């Protein structure tokens, strides 16, 4: 069967079900690729070879005995090292959690295990998910498998690189401001951010709680559908978890259901075409939009004026929430504590100084500032109001169109070190992705071409809240127009 790890989950599941291949073979093919390229790309912080093979054997036994199996039975899934895994080190890419072994599984990990997925390892990331390049990891940067001189994007760069390099079939990341869609775009794979609350955040180490969302990576939109169906659903352990199911029917390869009605309307936000967008990305996305139009769908220009303030709003709200969430790293309950301190204050301050990297410190200071007396109204409260304006604009535009289409990132993958000296420049890479998080809607990034250097570029499809399933249907439709890489 050769190169099993290059196939998609929906192809592999039918081979596994008919016993043409075994879960052990499949897992071994991924582990062999991790052996070959894992160290060089630095995609994993922890590889779980033993428990992965054990799970694969268990699934093979179940199938051979004709016992019922889960929906991802035998499919390798890599998970970002921000998701708690019982008894398996969970670092968040930070020195402060370098010895943290969670006593419980995150809800998504439990769901993956119940679906008989093979959890193959914990992937590298920007520290506490703060970054757009995976260069801010205490465990060193992850490289882009397409061009190792370039970043894979971030903060879920390890998961994106692992799928791209065929070290796993599927992966989970988290998308707080674009941290799954942006790396998917830079690596040439598919990434989906579900509606806020569609996937339980229980056991996800918090960065910015009103924006954080566990989000999958895959090689195509069908696979995204498959894993989203498994990980989503209500969880009483997350009070922001949506009660209703967003994926209605069991996965059947979308047989006969993939088509979108020709009356489907795509809106092109004019704010997405301004300054900073690389001409090659503009061209590639425009080319796709033309194909959508030629295929008979309605395409019209729309306007959401508050979009242009997206990055500004985002960096006030996410830093405010982060400064509060990261107060828990105090050297008392878990994580690292320094040895040398005179009193309690010094223990806190020195522990946090030694445990956090520069980007985390920057964001804690900015977040503390925007929440402080005298500046709260001007920054935090104002940002929340602009966020409400943005939400109204999205609600209005979705009365006119079914989806929004636009670029995922302003440029293809940049070089390592290119943006690390200028935080603002790094932040601006998320200009098209952060509005989605601010208004809590679902969005998917799929490849839409390569530039002259062979670097992939992505486009995103954004839909209204809770329309996760049709957003993925739209992605499957776009893939069928032959625009994938």
């Amino acid at each position, binding site marked *: 069967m050769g190169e099993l790890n290059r196939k998609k989950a929906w192809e592999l599941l039918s081979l596994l079900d008919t016993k043409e291949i075994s879960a052990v073979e499949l897992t071994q093919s991924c582990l062999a690729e991790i052996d070959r390229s894992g160290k060089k790309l630095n995609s994993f912080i922890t590889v779980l070879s033993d428990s992965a093979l054990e799970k694969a054997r268990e699934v093979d036994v179940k199938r051979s005995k004709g016992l019922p199996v889960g929906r991802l039975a035998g499919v390798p899934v890599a998970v970002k090292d921000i998701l708690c895994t019982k008894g398996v080190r969970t670092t968040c890419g930070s020195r402060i959690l370098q010895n943290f072994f969670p006593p419980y599984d995150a809800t998504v990990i439990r769901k993956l295990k119940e679906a008989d997925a093979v959890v193959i390892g914990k992937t590298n990331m920007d520290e506490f998910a703060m970054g757009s390049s995976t260069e801010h990891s205490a465990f060193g940067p992850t490289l882009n498998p397409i061009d190792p001189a370039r970043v894979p994007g971030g903060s879920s760069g390890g998961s994106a690189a692992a799928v791209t390099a065929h070290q796993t079939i599927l992966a989970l990341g988290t998308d707080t401001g674009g941290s799954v869609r942006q790396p998917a775009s830079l690596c040439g794979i598919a990434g989906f951010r579900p509606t806020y609350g569609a996937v339980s955040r229980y056991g996800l180490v918090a960065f910015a709680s009103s924006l954080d969302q566990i989000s999958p990576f895959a090689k195509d939109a069908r696979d995204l559908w498959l894993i989203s169906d498994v990980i989503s659903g209500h969880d*009483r352990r997350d009070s922001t978890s949506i009660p209703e199911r967003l994926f209605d029917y069991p996965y059947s390869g979308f047989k006969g259901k993939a088509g979108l009605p020709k009356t489907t309307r795509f809106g092109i936000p004019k704010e997405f075409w301004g300054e900073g967008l690389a001409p090659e990305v503009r061209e590639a996305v425009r080319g796709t939009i033309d194909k959508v139009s030629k295929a008979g769908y309605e395409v019209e220009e729309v306007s959401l004026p508050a979009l242009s303030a997206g990055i500004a709003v985002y960096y006030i709200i996410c830093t405010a929430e982060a400064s509060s969430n990261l107060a828990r790293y105090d050297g008392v309950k878990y994580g690292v504590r320094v040895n040398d301190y005179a*009193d309690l204050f010094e*223990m806190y301050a020195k522990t946090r*100084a030694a445990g956090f990297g520069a980007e985390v*410190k920057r964001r804690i*200071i900015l977040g503390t500032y925007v929440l402080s007396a005298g500046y709260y109204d001007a920054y935090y409260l104002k*940002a929340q109001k*602009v966020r*409400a304006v943005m939400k109204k604009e999205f609600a209005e535009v979705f009365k006119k169109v079914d989806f929004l289409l636009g670029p995922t990132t302003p440029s293809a993958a940049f070089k390592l070190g290119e943006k690390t000296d200028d935080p603002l420049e790094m932040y601006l890479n998320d200009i098209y992705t952060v509005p989605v998080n601010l208004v809590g809607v679902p969005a998917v990034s799929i490849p839409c071409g390569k530039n002259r250097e062979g670097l992939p570029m992505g486009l995103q499809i954004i839909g209204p809240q809770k329309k996760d399933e049709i957003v993925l249907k739209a992605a499957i439709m776009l893939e069928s127009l032959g625009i994938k890489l």
Partner: protein
Amino acid sequence: MTFQPSDVERYAKLARLALSEEEKARFARELSSVLEYVGQIQKVDTSGITEYETVVPLPPAWREDVVEPSLSVEEALANAPDRKDNFFKVPRVL
């Protein structure tokens, strides 16, 4: 608003974060440019907005106040940097 190293020091102290002189100078410079950029939110008209709501509005998630299985003391303390008996151990507070 421009951030001076003394401002950085003030907010870092509120956040219980010790910084070197070099970090204070660097963060002051970097955060000044970020603050200048985020200042653009003032230009957005928000006069119609009285308060903001949650991202996806949901009813409160109530539950009965009953004891359920939870982590054992050993599991809860397993990651503690320092402990004594069934407690987290910290430097003298009072």
